[in-house]
Protein backbone atom coordinates (compact mmCIF):
# COMPACT_ATOMS: atom_id res chain seq x y z
CA UNK A 1 0.00 0.00 0.00
CA UNK A 2 1.53 3.29 -1.07
CA UNK A 3 1.51 6.12 1.37
CA UNK A 4 2.25 9.61 0.13
CA UNK A 5 4.68 12.04 1.71
CA UNK A 6 1.74 14.16 2.89
CA UNK A 7 0.11 11.16 4.51
CA UNK A 8 3.32 10.21 6.26
CA UNK A 9 3.83 13.74 7.51
CA UNK A 10 0.30 13.82 8.85
CA UNK A 11 0.67 10.51 10.67
CA UNK A 12 3.99 11.64 12.10
CA UNK A 13 2.38 14.85 13.34
CA UNK A 14 -0.35 12.75 14.95
CA UNK A 15 2.09 10.41 16.66
CA UNK A 16 1.80 12.36 19.88
CA UNK A 17 -1.93 12.59 19.52
CA UNK A 18 -4.47 15.00 18.19
CA UNK A 19 -4.10 18.59 19.46
CA UNK A 20 -6.69 19.19 22.19
CA UNK A 21 -8.04 22.22 20.42
CA UNK A 22 -11.60 22.96 19.18
CA UNK A 23 -10.35 22.86 15.58
CA UNK A 24 -7.67 20.18 15.91
CA UNK A 25 -7.30 19.49 12.21
CA UNK A 26 -6.82 23.17 11.47
CA UNK A 27 -4.10 23.29 14.13
CA UNK A 28 -2.53 20.15 12.72
CA UNK A 29 -2.68 21.40 9.15
CA UNK A 30 -1.09 24.66 10.12
CA UNK A 31 1.98 22.82 11.35
CA UNK A 32 2.24 20.97 8.05
CA UNK A 33 1.32 23.74 5.66
CA UNK A 34 -2.06 22.16 4.90
CA UNK A 35 -5.51 23.65 5.12
CA UNK A 36 -7.98 22.15 7.55
CA UNK A 37 -9.89 20.62 4.62
CA UNK A 38 -6.71 19.06 3.24
CA UNK A 39 -5.78 17.59 6.60
CA UNK A 40 -9.25 16.09 7.00
CA UNK A 41 -9.30 14.74 3.47
CA UNK A 42 -5.89 13.13 3.92
CA UNK A 43 -6.93 11.45 7.14
CA UNK A 44 -10.21 10.22 5.69
CA UNK A 45 -8.34 8.76 2.74
CA UNK A 46 -6.04 6.85 5.08
CA UNK A 47 -9.02 5.55 6.98
CA UNK A 48 -10.87 4.46 3.84
CA UNK A 49 -7.84 2.49 2.69
CA UNK A 50 -7.53 0.83 6.06
CA UNK A 51 -4.14 2.30 6.95
CA UNK A 52 -5.76 4.04 9.88
CA UNK A 53 -8.01 1.47 11.46
CA UNK A 54 -9.64 3.61 14.05
CA UNK A 55 -9.39 6.96 15.66
CA UNK A 56 -9.90 7.43 19.33
CA UNK A 57 -8.32 7.27 22.73
CA UNK A 58 -5.62 4.81 23.69
CA UNK A 59 -5.92 3.88 27.31
CA UNK A 60 -3.22 2.59 29.57
CA UNK A 61 -4.83 -0.49 31.00
CA UNK A 62 -2.73 -0.50 34.13
CA UNK A 63 -3.66 3.07 35.03
CA UNK A 64 -7.28 2.23 34.36
CA UNK A 65 -7.24 -0.44 37.04
CA UNK A 66 -6.61 -3.47 34.83
CA UNK A 67 -3.70 -4.75 36.84
CA UNK A 68 -3.62 -8.27 35.44
CA UNK A 69 -3.23 -9.54 31.95
CA UNK A 70 -2.56 -12.97 30.59
CA UNK A 71 -1.57 -14.25 27.23
CA UNK A 72 -3.41 -17.52 26.82
CA UNK A 73 -2.13 -19.86 24.15
CA UNK A 74 -3.68 -22.98 22.70
CA UNK A 75 -2.62 -25.84 20.46
CA UNK A 76 -5.69 -26.05 18.25
CA UNK A 77 -5.86 -28.44 15.27
CA UNK A 78 -5.34 -26.36 12.12
CA UNK A 79 -8.78 -27.21 10.77
CA UNK A 80 -10.46 -25.80 13.87
CA UNK A 81 -8.34 -22.77 14.62
CA UNK A 82 -10.26 -20.17 12.65
CA UNK A 83 -13.66 -21.11 14.05
CA UNK A 84 -12.26 -21.25 17.58
CA UNK A 85 -10.48 -17.92 17.14
CA UNK A 86 -13.63 -16.17 16.04
CA UNK A 87 -15.64 -17.36 19.01
CA UNK A 88 -12.81 -16.65 21.42
CA UNK A 89 -12.35 -13.11 20.09
CA UNK A 90 -15.95 -12.30 20.88
CA UNK A 91 -15.86 -13.59 24.46
CA UNK A 92 -15.94 -11.06 27.31
CA UNK A 93 -12.52 -10.05 28.57
CA UNK A 94 -10.70 -11.15 25.42
CA UNK A 95 -9.02 -8.09 23.95
CA UNK A 96 -6.99 -9.62 21.13
CA UNK A 97 -6.90 -12.95 19.34
CA UNK A 98 -4.37 -14.08 16.75
CA UNK A 99 -3.18 -17.18 14.96
CA UNK A 100 0.61 -17.46 14.96
CA UNK A 101 3.04 -20.15 13.80
CA UNK A 102 4.01 -23.01 16.12
CA UNK A 103 7.73 -23.20 16.87
CA UNK A 104 8.36 -26.81 17.83
CA UNK A 105 9.84 -28.18 19.96
CA UNK A 106 9.84 -25.08 22.19
CA UNK A 107 6.42 -23.80 21.35
CA UNK A 108 3.48 -25.96 20.19
CA UNK A 109 0.80 -23.26 20.36
CA UNK A 110 -0.89 -21.61 17.39
CA UNK A 111 -3.78 -19.60 18.85
CA UNK A 112 -3.01 -16.63 21.09
CA UNK A 113 -5.38 -14.41 22.98
CA UNK A 114 -5.00 -11.63 25.51
CA UNK A 115 -7.24 -11.33 28.52
CA UNK A 116 -7.26 -8.21 30.69
CA UNK A 117 -8.79 -8.13 34.13
CA UNK A 118 -8.70 -6.19 37.35
CA UNK A 119 -6.84 -9.07 38.99
CA UNK A 120 -5.67 -12.59 38.15
CA UNK A 121 -8.85 -14.19 39.48
CA UNK A 122 -10.92 -12.06 37.10
CA UNK A 123 -8.68 -13.07 34.21
CA UNK A 124 -9.11 -16.75 35.06
CA UNK A 125 -12.88 -16.41 35.30
CA UNK A 126 -12.95 -14.80 31.87
CA UNK A 127 -10.73 -17.57 30.55
CA UNK A 128 -13.05 -20.24 31.92
CA UNK A 129 -16.03 -18.72 30.18
CA UNK A 130 -14.14 -18.16 26.91
CA UNK A 131 -12.77 -21.71 26.81
CA UNK A 132 -16.22 -23.13 27.37
CA UNK A 133 -17.90 -21.00 24.71
CA UNK A 134 -15.20 -21.65 22.09
CA UNK A 135 -15.22 -25.40 22.69
CA UNK A 136 -11.60 -25.29 23.81
CA UNK A 137 -11.92 -26.89 27.23
CA UNK A 138 -10.09 -30.08 26.21
CA UNK A 139 -7.51 -28.31 24.06
CA UNK A 140 -3.98 -28.05 25.49
CA UNK A 141 -3.25 -24.53 26.67
CA UNK A 142 -0.99 -22.44 28.84
CA UNK A 143 -1.65 -19.20 30.69
CA UNK A 144 1.22 -16.72 30.74
CA UNK A 145 0.55 -13.93 33.19
CA UNK A 146 2.49 -10.73 32.72
CA UNK A 147 5.04 -9.71 35.25
CA UNK A 148 7.02 -6.56 34.83
CA UNK A 149 6.27 -4.30 31.93
CA UNK A 150 9.37 -2.71 30.50
CA UNK A 151 8.23 -0.65 27.59
CA UNK A 152 4.94 0.44 26.20
CA UNK A 153 4.82 2.88 23.43
CA UNK A 154 3.64 3.25 19.90
CA UNK A 155 6.17 1.84 17.52
CA UNK A 156 8.27 4.40 15.75
CA UNK A 157 8.94 4.07 12.08
CA UNK A 158 11.75 6.47 11.51
CA UNK A 159 11.84 10.24 11.28
CA UNK A 160 9.31 10.59 8.49
CA UNK A 161 6.63 8.47 10.02
CA UNK A 162 5.49 7.23 13.33
CA UNK A 163 3.21 5.36 15.49
CA UNK A 164 0.79 2.56 15.60
CA UNK A 165 -1.09 1.58 18.51
CA UNK A 166 0.91 -1.32 19.34
CA UNK A 167 -2.32 -1.69 21.14
CA UNK A 168 -3.92 -3.13 18.08
CA UNK A 169 -1.96 -4.71 15.36
CA UNK A 170 1.17 -5.33 17.29
CA UNK A 171 -0.18 -5.80 20.69
CA UNK A 172 0.20 -9.35 21.00
CA UNK A 173 2.05 -9.07 24.18
CA UNK A 174 0.31 -6.31 25.97
Amino acid at each position, binding site marked *: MDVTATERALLAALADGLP*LHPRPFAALGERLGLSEAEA*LETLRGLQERGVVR*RFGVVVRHHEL*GYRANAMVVWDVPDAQVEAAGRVLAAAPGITLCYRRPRRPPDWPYNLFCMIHGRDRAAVLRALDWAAESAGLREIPREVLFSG*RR*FKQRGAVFGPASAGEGTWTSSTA*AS
Partner: protein
Amino acid sequence: MDELDRRIVNALQGGFPICERPFAVAAEGLGIEEATLIARLAALREAGVLSRFGPLWKAEGLGGAVTLAAMAVPPDRFEAVTALVNAHPEVAHNYERTHRLNMWFVLATETPQGIDAAIQAIEAETGIPVLNMPREAEYHVGLRLEA
Protein backbone atom coordinates in the same frame (compact mmCIF):
# COMPACT_ATOMS: atom_id res chain seq x y z
CA MET B 1 -11.49 9.33 37.69
CA ASP B 2 -15.10 10.21 38.19
CA GLU B 3 -18.22 9.04 36.41
CA LEU B 4 -17.83 11.54 33.58
CA ASP B 5 -14.21 10.52 32.98
CA ARG B 6 -15.34 6.92 32.71
CA ARG B 7 -18.05 7.79 30.23
CA ILE B 8 -15.58 9.76 28.15
CA VAL B 9 -13.02 6.97 28.08
CA ASN B 10 -15.63 4.34 27.24
CA ALA B 11 -17.22 6.42 24.51
CA LEU B 12 -14.05 7.53 22.79
CA GLN B 13 -12.29 4.17 22.71
CA GLY B 14 -14.77 3.10 20.09
CA GLY B 15 -14.07 5.96 17.79
CA PHE B 16 -13.84 9.65 17.26
CA PRO B 17 -15.40 11.72 14.49
CA ILE B 18 -13.13 13.06 11.80
CA CYS B 19 -14.62 16.48 11.07
CA GLU B 20 -13.97 20.19 11.67
CA ARG B 21 -15.20 20.25 15.26
CA PRO B 22 -14.76 16.67 16.46
CA PHE B 23 -14.72 17.53 20.16
CA ALA B 24 -17.99 19.41 19.78
CA VAL B 25 -19.60 16.41 18.07
CA ALA B 26 -18.27 13.94 20.64
CA ALA B 27 -19.26 16.24 23.50
CA GLU B 28 -22.79 16.47 22.19
CA GLY B 29 -23.05 12.69 22.22
CA LEU B 30 -21.98 12.75 25.85
CA GLY B 31 -24.30 15.61 26.73
CA ILE B 32 -21.50 17.94 27.81
CA GLU B 33 -19.81 21.09 26.54
CA GLU B 34 -16.97 20.96 24.04
CA ALA B 35 -14.68 22.87 26.41
CA THR B 36 -15.46 20.41 29.20
CA LEU B 37 -14.52 17.45 27.03
CA ILE B 38 -11.24 19.06 25.97
CA ALA B 39 -10.37 19.90 29.58
CA ARG B 40 -11.20 16.37 30.76
CA LEU B 41 -9.12 14.78 28.00
CA ALA B 42 -6.19 17.02 28.86
CA ALA B 43 -6.45 15.99 32.52
CA LEU B 44 -6.74 12.29 31.66
CA ARG B 45 -3.69 12.54 29.48
CA GLU B 46 -1.82 14.38 32.21
CA ALA B 47 -2.78 11.64 34.70
CA GLY B 48 -1.48 8.97 32.36
CA VAL B 49 -4.82 7.22 31.89
CA LEU B 50 -4.70 8.01 28.21
CA SER B 51 -1.43 7.38 26.48
CA ARG B 52 -2.53 8.90 23.24
CA PHE B 53 -5.48 10.40 21.58
CA GLY B 54 -5.47 9.95 17.86
CA PRO B 55 -5.34 7.39 15.09
CA LEU B 56 -4.25 3.80 15.36
CA TRP B 57 -2.73 2.58 12.18
CA LYS B 58 -1.28 -0.56 10.76
CA ALA B 59 2.47 -0.72 10.46
CA GLU B 60 2.00 -2.88 7.39
CA GLY B 61 -0.01 -0.11 5.77
CA LEU B 62 3.05 2.09 5.93
CA GLY B 63 5.32 -0.61 4.52
CA GLY B 64 6.52 -1.71 7.93
CA ALA B 65 6.33 -5.00 9.76
CA VAL B 66 5.40 -6.16 13.24
CA THR B 67 6.03 -9.39 15.05
CA LEU B 68 5.85 -10.98 18.47
CA ALA B 69 9.09 -12.49 19.72
CA ALA B 70 9.97 -14.58 22.74
CA MET B 71 13.12 -15.63 24.57
CA ALA B 72 13.91 -18.03 27.41
CA VAL B 73 16.16 -15.86 29.55
CA PRO B 74 18.06 -17.39 32.48
CA PRO B 75 16.68 -15.65 35.61
CA ASP B 76 20.11 -14.47 36.73
CA ARG B 77 20.62 -12.71 33.40
CA PHE B 78 17.15 -11.23 33.14
CA GLU B 79 18.04 -7.63 33.99
CA ALA B 80 21.04 -7.54 31.70
CA VAL B 81 19.18 -9.10 28.78
CA THR B 82 16.26 -6.71 29.30
CA ALA B 83 18.61 -3.78 28.93
CA LEU B 84 20.12 -5.20 25.74
CA VAL B 85 16.73 -5.94 24.18
CA ASN B 86 15.10 -2.65 25.14
CA ALA B 87 18.03 -0.68 23.74
CA HIS B 88 16.73 -1.58 20.29
CA PRO B 89 14.35 1.12 19.08
CA GLU B 90 12.43 -1.56 17.18
CA VAL B 91 11.22 -3.02 20.49
CA ALA B 92 7.81 -1.49 21.05
CA HIS B 93 7.02 -3.15 24.30
CA ASN B 94 8.40 -5.91 26.39
CA TYR B 95 6.75 -8.01 29.07
CA GLU B 96 8.05 -10.51 31.53
CA ARG B 97 5.76 -13.56 31.55
CA THR B 98 5.28 -16.63 33.70
CA HIS B 99 6.79 -19.32 31.46
CA ARG B 100 10.14 -20.83 30.54
CA LEU B 101 9.87 -18.42 27.60
CA ASN B 102 9.83 -15.52 30.02
CA MET B 103 10.50 -12.48 27.86
CA TRP B 104 7.94 -11.44 25.23
CA PHE B 105 8.37 -8.38 23.10
CA VAL B 106 6.89 -6.77 20.04
CA LEU B 107 9.18 -5.70 17.24
CA ALA B 108 8.04 -3.06 14.79
CA THR B 109 10.28 -2.11 11.90
CA GLU B 110 10.13 0.12 8.88
CA THR B 111 10.60 -2.78 6.49
CA PRO B 112 9.88 -6.53 6.65
CA GLN B 113 13.65 -7.19 6.44
CA GLY B 114 14.13 -5.10 9.55
CA ILE B 115 12.52 -7.82 11.68
CA ASP B 116 15.15 -10.41 10.76
CA ALA B 117 17.93 -7.91 11.24
CA ALA B 118 16.71 -6.94 14.71
CA ILE B 119 16.29 -10.58 15.74
CA GLN B 120 19.77 -11.49 14.53
CA ALA B 121 21.24 -8.53 16.39
CA ILE B 122 19.45 -9.47 19.63
CA GLU B 123 20.52 -13.11 19.32
CA ALA B 124 24.14 -12.06 18.70
CA GLU B 125 24.18 -9.65 21.64
CA THR B 126 22.51 -11.98 24.13
CA GLY B 127 23.49 -15.44 22.89
CA ILE B 128 19.85 -16.47 23.38
CA PRO B 129 17.65 -17.74 20.53
CA VAL B 130 14.67 -15.55 19.66
CA LEU B 131 11.44 -17.23 18.57
CA ASN B 132 9.71 -15.17 15.90
CA MET B 133 5.92 -15.55 15.89
CA PRO B 134 4.37 -13.16 13.39
CA ARG B 135 0.63 -12.83 13.21
CA GLU B 136 -0.93 -15.13 10.59
CA ALA B 137 -4.55 -14.23 11.19
CA GLU B 138 -6.36 -11.78 13.41
CA TYR B 139 -9.74 -12.57 14.88
CA HIS B 140 -10.45 -9.32 16.61
CA VAL B 141 -9.59 -5.70 16.18
CA GLY B 142 -9.21 -3.18 18.90
CA LEU B 143 -8.53 -3.14 22.55
CA ARG B 144 -11.45 -1.88 24.50
CA LEU B 145 -11.56 -1.74 28.26
CA GLU B 146 -14.46 -0.56 30.33
CA ALA B 147 -13.33 2.23 32.61
